[in-house]
């Protein structure tokens, strides 16, 4: 079994379309899909992000970080939210991603999430992080 993150990316158009969709309808559409993941026993975590216009960007291009309000860059691919699922194969992760009730124009990137076990366990920082994960019940 392996954990995969399904990263949801939208465009200006798809974000606008999403905002126009009646809230109840959106809840139902996403809710049905989320319920599928729960019933299949594969859902680990899921979060959606607020409107990118409300975001802040810290830019490290120059010598000092520059902070600006608003969405990131050209807004061609806005990060909108994610799922983490625990499945048997990358193909299964892809198959779940295909089923996301996403709006036309948006994209989903699928990336494996390495477990803490895959890092060198004798490293002091890994040990600290591990302790935090134990205390808080993180993945």
């Amino acid at each position, binding site marked *: 079994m392996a954990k995969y993150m399904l990263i949801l990316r939208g465009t200006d158009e798809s974000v606008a379309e999403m905002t126009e969709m009646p809230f109840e309808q959106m809840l139902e559409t996403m809710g049905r899909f989320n319920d599928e993941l729960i019933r299949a026993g594969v859902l680990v975590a899921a979060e959606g992000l607020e409107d990118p216009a409300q975001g802040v960007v810290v830019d490290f291009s120059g010598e000092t970080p520059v902070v600006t309000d608003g969405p990131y860059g050209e807004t061609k691919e806005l990060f909108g939210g994610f799922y983490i699922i625990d499945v*048997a194969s990358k193909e299964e992760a892809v198959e779940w991603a295909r089923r996301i009730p996403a709006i036309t124009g948006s994209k989903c990137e699928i990336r494996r999430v390495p477990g803490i076990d895959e890092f060198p366990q004798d490293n002091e920082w890994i040990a600290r992080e591990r302790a935090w994960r134990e205390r*808080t019940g993180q993945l």
Partner: protein
Amino acid sequence: MSSAAGGPPCTESARRAVEAVWRIESARIVGALARYTGDFALAEDVAQEAVAEALVTWSRAGAPESPVGWLLATARRRAVDAFRRRSALDERYAALAGRLAEGEASSGAAAPPDRPDDPPWDPDRIDDDVLALMFTACHPVLAPEARVALTLRVVGGLSSEEIARGFLVPVPTVQARITRAKKTIAAAKVPFELPPAGERRERLGGVLSVLYVIFTEGSTATSGDRLLRSDLAYEAVRLARTLVALLPDEPETHGLLALFELTAARFPARVGPGGEAVLLEDQDRRLWDRSAIRRGLAALGRASAAGRGLGPYGLQAAIAACHASATSVPETDWERIVLLYEALGRVAPSPVVELNRAVAVAMADGPDRALSMVDELAVSGRLAGSHLLPGVRGELLARLGRVAEARAELELAARLCRNVRERSVLLRRAAALT
């Protein structure tokens, strides 16, 4: 599903794509087909034929737009063909074939639509279909190993190869079990339906015990050279989560899931770097999966909240929870574990439970009383031939300083144990005694 490894890369990628869809959808596909046709064995057959056809077609033409719809439509076509063949012998089948071909289910449900974006089943019925499938695969007319194989195949969507790997039996054995199971269900005229209310509780017990067997085999492999087969155990976790979602009001279902989560949480610490078994007292508890523990405790809370008292699985989960919340073996609440084993012995008496209770008594009160409990068990002969009894007896004797007897018992346990990893732990313990 057949899954011949190798072959050209496109065949391999098609196989993996088919497997992924099948894993997610097998229960719903077979469930819907069984309801359409009223014939569980036929449903399983045609579903497998559709999978085989998908392997060929998808490797040539790529996966279709709606893989699920494709599989269901193909399987339904096969079912119509089967009914037409039979209708030459019996005209009742002609009517069934006609209805099915028109897309009208024998039960009167709506046909699966051909539009790729719609789910090809009736969302209001699918839960009942999947549940009925679980109850059918775990039906009491079947032999226990047939229930296990059939459940993993039709509900879990595992291939015969995967099931064979999980239980260390040859693939033809799994195939034969499944074929025989389907014949038994047909011969016994088991209807594809939810059990009547009067039988429901008992039949649910049957389903839970099948999941328990699958999990237990994965978490304490009875034979072979690997201590754990965690993929198999994970299948049981997945199936238990599905069952909990379908039957949220059954406390024992939550108890079973809690037991699985809390036990699986310890998997990462149970196997050493060389694949060797690590005993509870030596486990690095930092390796325990805290999010699994949290899920397990939450499930146990739901089982207790029903207020009907914990059943056998809930009690075992409560014991696992004592371990999960302790920082070390000495810090563990052994008195509570003794009480829980006593309760478990009352609701589900078994020699293994008594043996475990003796271990807990040894931890709570010392080895003397525990040894007399174990000796009583030995006299009763109820665990004859099992490595567990001499294993525990050897440990207790060692704690009492009776070294020669302890060594003999541990060596006996090693001879009786079929798991290579567990056996070497026993031999190491015996050799370390001085």
